[in-house]
């Protein structure tokens, strides 16, 4: 027999190919064009691989690979179940789009003289880290995945080396290191108690650990992941560090990195600690994250900062679903993750375009964009409404599932969180509409008293008139290579509505798989318990 499932040879590829690409990118040095081509090819390949994995995982159950042929408990396993494969696919699509966008932005944002050569390899390493985190079936390797993506993100967040970025980067790096330390202590504790870091193995063995210790370990892991996922009160670092980075970097961070934390919470909660859901604690965390986050968003006058706060706030929705821990709650949370990765990335990319078009992301300086750049306006409006949970967009669909799960659970706390999620939805709409009113509707030159004085911005202020020609001309002033991927993501985010039925089907099956646990554990352990079945074939005695 083969120890590995049919598509298993594909599982490591998203990580290995990305790293290989990164290595080759560096090796070709300053040849930016070669770097672009390599990055594009690698990320496209990953999209294909991820799609295949999702198809296989949805058809045949979890896909497992024993790296190096080592048996499950000893070596590292990578597992692509529905959840992992789905998130892998979404993140691959998003990273590919952002890559194209950043190619378009290249000259503008990074300048001609800066070492562009760092961006592509680092970006590929980031992708490798994210993919690894999603695929890992090993707690320590999950840590490695986090380290990889964090190390890459340290470099990306300080890209350009300006004062604000280095300052923001300092906050980001130090907080991340602390979170990694918490994670590492938790892993040490887990290994000390159980003698294994294989997650499937842990799923079995942790049940034998006395409850008192188990809860400590669980809470440590949750705390570590909550820092990464930006759950209140561990979220303050995020709005202070994300917004200063270049638009594509912020976009991909906002879309992906916190979701990796949420993914980890979800995986650990369902696989390792199924009997100890800590629902009340998580519900409180969800409630506070939603409300405090969205209040932060209202208080901002800069689009990037506003979006960073909505990011924090909406993490609360996902935690809400995890806390409910029913099939519907988890399905809703997974759906919401998919939705939020797409939409939050899109909005940050659009904000990058706004910055180019309007010379700023500050609401005090922006104005009149609906008239000057109608397509840009549409590109903002659709995802913004989506984020606010306006139907029929995906944000609404995810929210409905979560509210249904909350109502099903009943109890005052669940209703309270449902109420908070509704208030958050309304306030998100408020924050977004405020942005729209000011940046897009308010005329640029009039009524400076509304939000302070208008400062003329540099750059692209072409005087198109209102009228039928506007639709085309305004976009021309933005780089096509940036507009095209943004439009693609806008379309993708909107299309989530159309494919919501099948997508919800997958998330529902993924949620059921998470709650069932046996497919995961059995696939990993049963096959892997025969040590080195395939390895032995290779090794000469």
């Amino acid at each position, binding site marked *: 027999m083969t120890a590995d499932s049919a598509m298993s040879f594909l599982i*490591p590829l998203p*990580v*290995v190919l990305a*790293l290989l690409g990164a*290595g080759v990118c560096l090796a*070709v*040095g300053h040849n930016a064009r070669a770097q672009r081509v390599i990055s594009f090819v690698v990320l496209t390949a990953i999209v294909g691989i991820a799609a295949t994995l999702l198809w296989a995982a949805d058809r045949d159950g979890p896909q497992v690979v024993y*790296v*190096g*042929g080592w048996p499950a408990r000893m070596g590292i396993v990578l597992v692509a179940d529905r959840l992992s494969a789905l998130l892998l696919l979404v993140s691959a699509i998003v990273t590919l789009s952002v890559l194209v966008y950043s190619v378009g932005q290249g000259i503008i944002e990074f300048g001609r003289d*800066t*070492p562009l050569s*760092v961006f592509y*390899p680092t970006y590929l*390493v980031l992708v490798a*880290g994210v993919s690894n985190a999603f695929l890992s079936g090993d707690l320590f*390797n999950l840590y490695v995945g986090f*380290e990889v993506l964090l190390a890459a993100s*340290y470099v990306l967040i300080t*890209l*350009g080396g300006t004062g604000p970025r280095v300052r923001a980067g*300092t*906050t980001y790096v*130090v907080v991340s290191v*602390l979170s990694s330390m918490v994670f590492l202590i938790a892993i040490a504790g*887990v290994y000390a108690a159980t*003698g294994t870091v*294989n997650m499937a193995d842990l799923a079995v063995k942790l049940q034998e650990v*006395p409850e*008192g*210790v188990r809860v*400590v370990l669980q*809470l*440590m892991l949750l*705390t570590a992941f909550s820092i990464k996922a930006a759950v209140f*009160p561990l979220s303050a670092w995020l709005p202070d560090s994300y917004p200063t980075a270049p638009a594509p970097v912020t976009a991909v961070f906002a879309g992906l990195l916190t979701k990796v934390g949420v993914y980890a919470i979800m995986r650990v909660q369902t696989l390792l600690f199924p009997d100890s859901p800590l629902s009340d604690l998580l519900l409180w965390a969800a409630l506070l994250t939603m409300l405090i986050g969205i*209040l932060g*968003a209202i*208080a901002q006058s800069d689009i990037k900062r506003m979006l960073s*706060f909505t990011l924090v706030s909406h993490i609360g929705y996902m935690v809400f679903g995890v806390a409910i821990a029913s099939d519907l709650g988890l399905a809703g949370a997974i759906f919401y993750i998919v939705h939020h990765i797409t939409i939050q990335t899109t909005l940050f990319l659009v904000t990058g375009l706004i910055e180019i078009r309007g010379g700023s992301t500050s609401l005090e300086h922006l104005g009149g964009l609906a008239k000057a750049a109608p397509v840009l306006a549409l590109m903002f409006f659709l995802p913004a409404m989506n984020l606010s949970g*306006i*139907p*029929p967009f995906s944000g609404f669909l995810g929210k409905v*599932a979560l*509210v*249904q799960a909350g*109502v*099903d659970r009943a109890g005052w706390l669940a209703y309270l969180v*449902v109420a908070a999620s*509704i208030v958050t939805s309304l306030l998100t709409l408020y924050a977004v509409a405020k942005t729209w009113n000011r940046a897009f509707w*308010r*005329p640029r030159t009039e009524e400076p008293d509304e939000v302070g004085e208008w400062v003329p911005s540099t750059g692209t202020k072409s005087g198109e*008139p*209102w009228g*039928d020609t506007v639709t085309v001309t305004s976009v021309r002033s933005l780089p096509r290579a940036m507009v095209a991927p943004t439009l693609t993501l806008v379309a993708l985010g909107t299309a989530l509505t159309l494919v919501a039925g099948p997508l919800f089907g997958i998330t529902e099956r993924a949620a059921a798989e998470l709650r069932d646990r046996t497919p995961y554990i059995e696939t990993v352990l049963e096959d892997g318990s025969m040590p*080195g079945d*395939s*390895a032995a074939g*290779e090794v*000469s005695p």
Partner: protein
Amino acid sequence: MLLALLIHLVAAAAAPALVSRLDRYAFPVLALAPASVFVWLLTLGGEVAGPDAAVRTETYEWVPTIGLEVGLRLDTLSWTLALLVTGIGALVLLYCTWYFRAYDPALWRFSGAFVAFAGSMLGLVLASDVLLLYVFWELTTVFSYILIGHNPERIANRRAAMTALLVTTFGGLAMLVGFIMLGESAGSYQIDAIMGLAPSGAATTAAIALVLVGAVSKSALVPFHFWLPGAMAAPTPVSAYLHAAAMVKAGVFLVAVMAPTFAEVSLWRPALLTLGVVTMIVGGVRALGQHDVKLLLAYGTVSQLGFLTAVVGLGTRAAALAGLAMVVAHALFKAALFMVVGIVDHSAHTRDLRKLSQLRPAMPWLFGFTVLAAASMAGIPPMLGFVAKESVYGAFVDVVADGDGTGIGPVAGSLVLAGLVVGSLLTMAYTLRFVWGVFGDKPGVERPADLVAVPVGFAAPTAVLATVSLVLGFFGSALTDLWAGYDHLFPPGVHHAELALWHGLSPALGLSAIAVLGGVALFVWQRRAQYVPTAPWMPSAERSYEAVMRGTDRLAVEVTGRTQRGSLPFYLGSILVVVLLVPGTALVLNRTWTDDVVWFDSAAQAVVAVLMATAAVLTVRSRRRLKAVLLAGVSGYCTAMLFLLHGAPDLALTQVLVETVTLVIFVLVLRRMVPYFSDRPLTRARWLRVGIGAASGIFASGIALAAAGVRIGDPVSVEFPESAVEYGGGHNIVNVTLVDIRAWDTMGELSVLVVAATGVASLIFLITGRGGVQSPANPLPSHQDTGRWLRAGRTLSAERRSIVFEIVTRLVFHTIILFSVWLVFAGHNGPGGGFAGGLMAGLALMVRYLAGGRYELDEAAPVDAGRVLGLGLAVATSAALAPLAFGGQVLQSATIDLHLWAIGDIHLVTSLFFDIGVYLVVFGLMLDVLRSLGGGIDADAEDEMPDLPGSYTDDESTPMTGGAR
């Protein structure tokens, strides 16, 4: 039915293109969309309306997981509303053709949004799934936001749009929760299933209350009425549509849909009747106070919506019939009247009734139709408005008489009826004010100067609507039959309800007479007394709304200021506090502690541990950066010592090398930093930090103790020694672990090294503004003297040079490099490995750099560090991928035994190639770090201090070496 919606969708999508081709003549084309649906609906009248009404349904799957499906149904109620939505929609679109100026640049957006709005409203009345209903409900909100903000240049318009958006979304969200509560208890989101729920129980009552919040806010009832007059900011066609057929009717529609079952819910009737009557009166009084005729009509709508809600919400068969008639009547006359306002505004360029005068001669026909529509509004026979109002009175008279199955007592019933009559009286008064205001001749007011003639097409929709209002008044019994499909959902009342112009001398007729005559009297009195009600006694909902929004903004700023300090120490502290509070509390509560604690295996361990702890404490206490770094190094070396004492020389070797490299790097960096840490915080804060730090340390130890104490079995690593040899082909377990068992981890960490190195290099490059940090600096100029031992030795100043060091470096460099390579090959069985080897080679480079400066470093390694790093990563990953080609698994290793002539047997494990990648990456890292943090900073420092002794510069005019000075 789906087709009907799709027609609207396509029309909306095509609207911008049409407008750019045809300009405003696109509107008649667009009107075809609702018009065609209107005609189609008319043909269905026999099927879905009348005494034998059947329900037509269509269902398409959408998101079964959450019970959301595209379920559409056409029954009498939705058919009636759909006719209004499409019919009036088509007329308003026609009207738009004349309303807008030619080449209005925002028309493309308007036209699309308007058609989409109409389509959403149609979807709303057709939806049979409450979630789908909510979808369309919110879509009407969003499109109305866009339409109200059609002219966003004015701040008032933007505000009004935002207010409408937030208020109706607020209600909508409440309604959504209500729907979900209902749907979850019914197990389905189909309206039919939900209507099957028992109208009792706390959950259902709460859910219905939430749903009603949605209906009330959408239909602009008190206390949400203020958004509607603000929505006047929209162009008049929008107002005509929004007030008559769409948007605000959604709330009334919802009440009508749910009334057959949920009118029995305890709070339904009290809430709707009270709010309805209050709204009717408040709106009426406000309308009397307006000078802007459009605003007058808007408040009139508020008043009428209160009226409609009260009637439709009553939940008797008579009221249902009357309510439906009233809804239709209202839609017809209100749309007509708004259009009149738009026409007058267009012609006279004002809507202020104090400036409008002597318009009748200019537009006699329009005046006639206005009077017809207004008569319907005021409830004057023979208009449909009168017929409907008569029936309303009849229905409420029945309630006053014996409750008519509603359980309402005579007193309460009388109060409601009285309120409705007062409201109708006010309606009569403001109707007169409107007609007089627009067409009346005011003494001393000139006819507006530049009066524009009214095109026939512009007035035609008004004429149609007014005529229909008139004609339908004569078809009372036909309408009664038509709407039987709806009112028969309610139990039969005490009297057979029928729409008719003449019911005989009934109480209802008397009430109508009171309302009409009273209204006339009120109007006359108001004109005489010049009284304009300002209603200061009413609590201003608008002000409350603003206060809430301001409060929210302030709360947001306060909360954000508290939590978002922008201080890294605060964030770190809060994270640690959370760690202490959450897992920490759990640890304190833990009851499973082992008694079997071995404090140390040997005395040496204890000594090293104490040393380590002391060094750690001193590190934190030191004020000097260098001292802190050195002390941290002590902790690190102590760790290596512990490894050694545990019998892990390999780990110890690696740890020592890492510590050494780290120390050197730190020192390189510290050269350019202030020697002391910044000022310490105040005492109290310091003690707090000390406390948090100490508690965190204790907590971490506690976890170690607790976790290790409950160990439930042998760790996997006990199998490593055997497996390492058997499968990994090596005796050095650490190395086999790194390059085989857990090579996947290693590969990840390699990439960490790569990005860290390149990232640091790039930052240093950017900050120092120096090119080529990653690649060798300019080679030594050829004419320069080269050093005897090290080629670049002379680039250093005499003070920094040490001949002995140079000689030693010259002698050992290649030896170390060779040794490092040997470590790689030996690593699989003995201490060593790619990591240690790379570090060793890096140390060799470091020695070269320290002895001969950055030029010597370039001499030693004339390669781009980034390329080495990249190559290393590429080699490692290629080695990882290679087994796939041989049918193996990623990173799978194989053993190859070779017999080579002189060297003898070579036992080669393929993981060696991976280890070579590791070696290259570590080597590249070291080169990179030395170049950027060493050489780069050197160069930066020299630039800043060119005159200091010992500095080196490329300038030929200055002496090359310090030795010459």
